[in-house]
């Protein structure tokens, strides 16, 4: 048998081709992986694991619900209690989603939620329909849910150990203070308070009470934020001089134009009790269901949505209350009688704050936190932490890009091992989860890491974790993620922003005196609650 050179070439020539392609694929992939590993080793970021929470032992914690509106219902679901109406609606939505081939997991997630050792024993809502819904859905023959006409009656009854407060903002502090005085544990929605005076008073009440006090910033349970804290502590970003946070929503729900329930009238709603400290006006359904649009009961973008972004960053950076705040904006997209702005820009200054420096000592210090919001546009702008060495996008995912001018990464950038266009770190705990998010507003919260977190690749409602932590502290003692100090920081930052927008001037914080610096001739609390001149109409009953 004899082969010519030509035969050998045509017969065996395919083998070197195979070898070359194999080698190119393998060495390229392995080389890239090794480079990545070197970078990751240098960064040494530790993805956070969920806190181990001691079990909620003993008899079920007896909880009373004050305010059973949209948020109140959501909080009850995190406690394991869903209304009959919600279950029916979710079953219908799940069937529709199945038909359309879309994932929809709300009901399944709720049913798979770990049961908490808790019992809802009472409800207090000024609207009969809502109070009755809670009694009917949550009560059983042996364990009925009792309706209390006022929060004081509930707190003083001795029948509830803890209260969940999900009322309009102007009721948060009076109710929390009453509960704390009676050593009844409190879970209160954000913003913690509605004006400055009650913020100082609530802090004192919480410090003097034996009860556990938690503010409802559930994102403090989000694992990516805990990982972000590790990243900042390891000075991976270098000195962060600017943080940009945003709200972009462009739907009725996102602009607080909630549904008006047909059965609502002066007979089914205790209007006087709803008003409380707010200016007296005749019964008004628009104000009752869409109270977030008026300063008398709510606090608009600064109290409702900025607080989320501020507290997210305060949780990662622990930067505290800003030295000063300047805000501007207006009612530009929903001129429907509201008096809170729907476009708002706030700049908070932290001149003494630093996340560490890789440059000459003393060169870098100070940071601006910017919040930019519009309720007339839904384009998603990410939250960015901008440091001398790297930029980080913060949400349910984390992504870090090195900066072209970085000192820390200069050598790696020079050697081509890093490039400003390629992330050096990316954390996506949801990588193996398929989510079903339904509305535009819930997508907004989900992207920001406000709605849920991921534990071992499984989606977990962060409000559930926040509630579980609170209940565990009630039974076992311990520290809460969002206690009075965190709530105090959040409320003061929100009120400074509201004041700046209304007064059109810089509002400053006195760190030693622990108070907002007074302005001569101006009653700051009165300003905060009033309708700004020429804006909105309190007497209006425009239903958009």
């Amino acid at each position: 048998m004899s082969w010519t050179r030509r035969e050998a070439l045509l017969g065996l020539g395919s083998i070197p081709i195979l070898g070359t392609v194999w080698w190119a694929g393998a060495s390229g992939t392995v080389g890239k992986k090794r480079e990545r590993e070197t970078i990751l080793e240098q960064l040494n970021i530790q993805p956070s694991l969920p806190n181990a929470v001691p079990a909620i032992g003993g008899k079920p914690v007896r909880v009373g619900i004050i305010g059973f509106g949209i948020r109140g219902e959501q909080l009850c679901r995190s406690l394991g209690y869903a209304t009959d109406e919600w279950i029916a609606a979710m079953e219908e939505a799940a069937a529709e989603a199945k038909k359309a081939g879309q994932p929809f997991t709300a009901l399944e997630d709720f049913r798979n939620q770990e049961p908490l050792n808790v019992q809802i024993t009472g409800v207090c809502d000024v609207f009969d329909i809502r109070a009755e819904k809670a009694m009917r859905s949550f009560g059983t023959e042996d364990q009925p849910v009792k309706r209390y006409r006022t929060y004081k009656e509930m707190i003083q009854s001795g029948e509830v150990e803890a209260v969940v407060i999900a009322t309009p903002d102007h009721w948060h502090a009076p109710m929390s203070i009453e509960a704390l005085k009676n050593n009844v544990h409190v879970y209160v929605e954000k913003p913690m308070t509605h004006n400055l005076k009650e913020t100082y008073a609530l802090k004192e009440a919480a410090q003097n009470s034996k009860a556990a006090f938690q503010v409802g910033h559930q994102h403090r349970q989000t694992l990516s934020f805990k990982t972000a804290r590790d990243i900042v502590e390891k000075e991976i970003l270098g000195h962060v001089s600017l943080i940009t946070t945003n709200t972009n929503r462009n739907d009725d729900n996102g602009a607080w134009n909630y549904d008006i329930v047909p059965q609502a009238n002066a007979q089914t709603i205790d209007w006087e009790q709803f008003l409380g400290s707010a200016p007296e006006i005749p019964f008004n359904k628009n104000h009752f269901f869409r109270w977030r649009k008026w300063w008398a009961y709510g606090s608009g973008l600064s109290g409702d949505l900025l607080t989320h972004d501020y507290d997210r960053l305060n949780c990662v950076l622990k930067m505290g209350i800003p030295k000063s705040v300047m805000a501007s904006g207006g009612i530009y997209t929903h001129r429907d009688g509201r008096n809170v702005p729907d476009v708002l820009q706030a700049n908070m200054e932290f001149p003494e704050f630093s996340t560490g420096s890789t440059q000459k000592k003393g060169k870098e210090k100070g940071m601006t936190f910017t919040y930019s919001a519009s309720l007339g546009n839904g384009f998603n702008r990410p939250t960015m932490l901008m440091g001398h060495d790297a930029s980080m996008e913060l949400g349910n995912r984390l992504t870090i890009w090195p900066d072209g001018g970085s000192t820390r990464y200069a050598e790696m950038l020079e050697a081509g091992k890093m490039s400003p266009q390629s992330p050096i770190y990316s954390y996506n705990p949801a990588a193996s989860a398929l989510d079903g998010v339904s509305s535009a507003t819930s997508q907004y919260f989900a992207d920001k890491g406000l709605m849920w977190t991921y534990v071992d690749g499984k989606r977990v409602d962060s409000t559930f974790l926040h509630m579980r932590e609170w209940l565990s502290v009630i039974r076992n003692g311990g520290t809460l993620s969002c206690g009075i100090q965190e709530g105090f920081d959040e409320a003061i930052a929100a009120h400074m922003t509201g004041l700046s927008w209304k007064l059109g001037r810089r509002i400053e914080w006195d760190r030693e005196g622990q108070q907002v610096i007074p302005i001569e001739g101006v009653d700051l609390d009165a300003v905060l609650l009033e309708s700004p001149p020429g804006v909105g109409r309190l007497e209006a009953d425009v239903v958009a």
Partner: protein
Amino acid sequence: MSLSFNPQGSSWSIALLRILIGWHFLYEGIVKLYNPDWTSFGYLATAQGPLKPVFQAMTSEAVLPWIDTMNWAALVFVGITLILGVFEKAGALVGAGLLLLYYLAHPSWPGMAQVNTEGSYWIVNKNLIEAVACLVLFYHPTGSLFGLPRILSKNKTTTKTELS
């Protein structure tokens, strides 16, 4: 130069096509094989078209690792067979099948969002063209022209001669 059909030229062109498609498959397979973080999860989870539920079902925790392994194994198999020219018909069929699955997972049909694609496509895209090219390879084996069978077939001929 004559423009009439040239059987030798067409056979050599098909052999070249075979090597290039094999090259493409092998490289895709090897990159996945050597990258432990690679997963088809994203590709399957965002599937569209009539087989969407089938592809999404493949993303379940129990099934996904198998799908991932089968995917790179099939890619490497097609790559090796087409480059070497051994079992090239089987390789061409598996290749066409894989490409059709990729095509159906993200069909370039009107009304379907085109994600992560370079270029513009209407019904026909590169996956579909490469699948048809695999069909050509199936009907026109060229291993005996360029590839291991060229040597093996020569051996066979030699043996026959000796026996006779």
